[in-house]
């Protein structure tokens, strides 16, 4: 079942060059702490900053990299390079695209819409979360 919670307004949080490649910053978006990450290939992702394992607002301070994940693709099982952040507290890896924990798919952090317009990063609404 999918429950949709949407805000309609984007918050401009910083310039893209304020986020170093393969790192994150924390932004205040509608009163919530949101971690905004920039990957090596200049993709930008936004996740709740709250680490559900450590129960603290820290995810933006984790190390960003890639992890190989085997997925069932159209052509059978294929390897995929997943961009991820490791929680600085106890190192659980989260998929930057989906917020899902790569070690334990039962746990995930909410993700946010985010885009770069003219070198400026804007965070939008929290995306629909899969209710479990």
């Amino acid at each position: 079942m999918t429950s949709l919670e949407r805000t309609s307004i984007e918050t401009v949080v910083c310039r893209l060059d304020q986020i170093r490649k393969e790192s994150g910053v924390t932004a205040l978006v509608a009163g919530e702490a949101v971690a905004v990450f920039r990957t090596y290939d200049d993709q930008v992702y936004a996740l709740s900053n709250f680490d559900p394992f450590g129960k603290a607002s820290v995810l933006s301070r984790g190390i960003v990299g890639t992890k190989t994940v085997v997925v069932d693709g159209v052509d059978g099982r294929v390897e995929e390079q997943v961009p991820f952040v490791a929680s600085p507290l106890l190192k659980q890896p989260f998929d930057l695209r989906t917020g899902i924990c790569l070690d334990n798919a039962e746990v995930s952090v909410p993700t946010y819409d985010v885009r770069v317009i003219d070198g400026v990063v804007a965070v939008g609404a929290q995306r629909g979360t899969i209710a479990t």
Partner: protein
Amino acid sequence: MAPHLRKQLVVVGHGMVGHRFVQAAIERGLTETYDIIVLGEEPRPAYDRVALTSFFEVGAEALSYLPEGVYDDPRVSLHLESEVVAMDATAQTVTLANGKAFAYDELVLATGAAPFVPPVPGKDLGNVFVYRTIEDLEAIREASRTAKAGAVIGGGLLGLEAANALHQLGVKTHVVEMAPRLMAVQIDEAGGATLKRHVEDLGLSIHTGVMTELIDGDADGNVSGIKFKDEDTLPLDIVIFSAGIRPRDLIAREAGLDIAERGGVLVNEDCRTSDEHVWAIGECAAPGGRMYGLVAPGYSMAEVVVDQLLGGEGQFLGADMSTKLKLLGVDVASFGDAFATTEDALELVFADAVAGIYKKLVVAENATGGYELLGGILVGDASAYGSLRPMVGSGMELPANPEELILPAGRGGGVELGLPDEAQICSCNNVTKAEIKAAVSDDATLNDGGPCSDAGCVTKCTKAGSTCGSCKVVVKKIVEDHFAASGKVVDKSLCEHFAMTRQELFDVVAVHGYNRFDDIIEGHGKGRGCDICKPAVASVLASLLNHHVLDGANATLQDTNDAYLANLQKNGTYSVVPRIPGGEITPDKLIVIGQVAKEFGLYTKITGGQRIDLFGARMEDLPAIWKQLVDAGMESGHAYGKSLRTVKSCVGSTWCRYGVQDSVGMAIELELRYRGLRSPHKLKGGVSGCARECAEARSKDFGIIATEKGWNLYVCGNGGAIPSHAQLLAGDLDNETLIKYLDRFLMYYIRTADRLQRTSYWMDAIGGLDRIREVVVDDALGLGAELEAAMDTHVDSYFDEWKATIEDPEKLARFVSFVNAPGTPDPNITFREERGQIQAELNDGPVSLGSTIPVGAP
């Protein structure tokens, strides 16, 4: 049960074998039916006599088998300083010197042996010693303080060990042997000659084939020299007799028990004496007329008697007299039929006079025309001992060219051999290959109900390798082979991004001169890295370049603690630890720490590392906190880094009445020298002002303990989950040499250790303490100067990371709560109060500040 139904067993002698007997009696349930009374003559409970010489390094406590002086089993009582002077086999009693008597139902004699002192005139002079007990060693050490030269009479195994000790105590040492060669019992003439050359190279004087005519004394009744037949008197201040041992069979002799022709209480295969209720074990016993001067046969006898008393049929049928030892740094081993006394035995000899290596194998043809190993002698290089000894008596057929077994590795040697399962791998504790394999097999239960995980665990659970240690390499090999065979390959890759170990990575980075992660992963890895390889690369770069860890793109490689130069706490705040070198701090600095804590509302605690931790700092407050600390003359303590943490110190000679050196001064010097040094794992040091060791230096990666003459340097200790004591690398060093060795040691570790491999594990991985000593002390790889230069570069380029950070706006930019609201504290951080200070509080979910800008309907 009425008390008189319990029987009484008396053990005379609380030495190595007596102790093992009691242990086995408790373990196997003999105390269910017997009360055991142990009467020992020495002032202390049983200790490891085999390791007696290490008393000089580790002290009596470490050697003790029963430091508390009582057994866990209340049915055993131990009486020390209780010499039995007589036994009465008819009345079944033994009597002490003070007249006190004990009745027994069964009597076990474990009185050991005494050093033999030949009737040379002058043998009763002052400063004439034997080498058997801790008291002997204490007296020798005392005498050596003022002595210049000394002699050991006897060039056998123990004599050389005593000579080694005397030499280490800084006394010019002579070894006097009547026989034409050293270790005449164990090795042949050619081996003896090789050994002699080695020992002489170390600065000892060897006199073989000479008779001591008399010992000269001075006016005070102390030794002044010894005179050999037909020679001048050799001036000396100390004499140690080590001319063999004699079983201590006097009380048995006087009680009328049968005594062997060459001494020792005669026992049969059950270890029973000529009296039904009297047993003898260990060095005082002579099974079948022969006494054994090694501990392993004594242990077997102890087990036999326990078994017999339990109604079993255990028997002692002779023992393996193999020996391996490291004498003055020279490996010597002899095993099996070393002198080729078996009929038709053949000898294969390899000798390299230049390298000082002599190896001999004794083999015999078997029924099928192949060869079997009977024994051998190894001098100078005994590395093959562990694998050769178990082959003796195993019935195993040797390869077609048996000489390959003793050729040096480069010349076709070093062949791997599959030993049969029955082969005894550990002779000290009688453990076979099958038992070692069983300990690691999936259905094993030895290790807390499960299988052993590695060789160290096998040693703990089976005792294999726990006594003399000479079988350790083979134990490890068997365990690794087993894992390899069962498909459990130990993958040494750093992570999925780098198929290499940290050491290989270090070399790659050093050789190519990389200074960016991007180049390294492009050239040698795949993907974009992770939380394992990025900090590892960061650490390697920091060790090689000693730049600021937050410079440029490197900031994103750092683990969270390094990334903010503070330790992340569970609620997302940080703790701040200023360096307090050696634990010494002025009142002014203490006041500043207190003021900072008050101003920023921080929790304060004295750490286990002798300094003060300030907890609960918000990330955005860190620069302001550092500014105040730096202004007051403090700097980063690197509590966050895989780097030098603290060099703990005791107060030492500055205040302590026992201190023999300035341990605080030395700790401060070392902490300042190695501060900021990034390493594979954290590094800790300690310096104690005397052997009382109040700084717990031996639980550190490098520990220094003051001696009268300088410093003893111990390496590779740690506390933590699996504590290990640091081991002596070199003794009595002056300041300069100490620092030289430490520089080399630390740099060698940094270059070759694996990621998160603390020094003790690294030591095991690279080949043990001997290997480290070769590289660090003997400079066998010729790397010494290079390692020292690398350390000098580190020392010269040190700067304080906090100071550099607060001076650099670009680095400071990261220290904000929110990029878009730098002044707003993160509402997720909450505290509660406890004992008058703050404590971290966790929240179940994210805490919202409430929307500050209008948002659409939820």
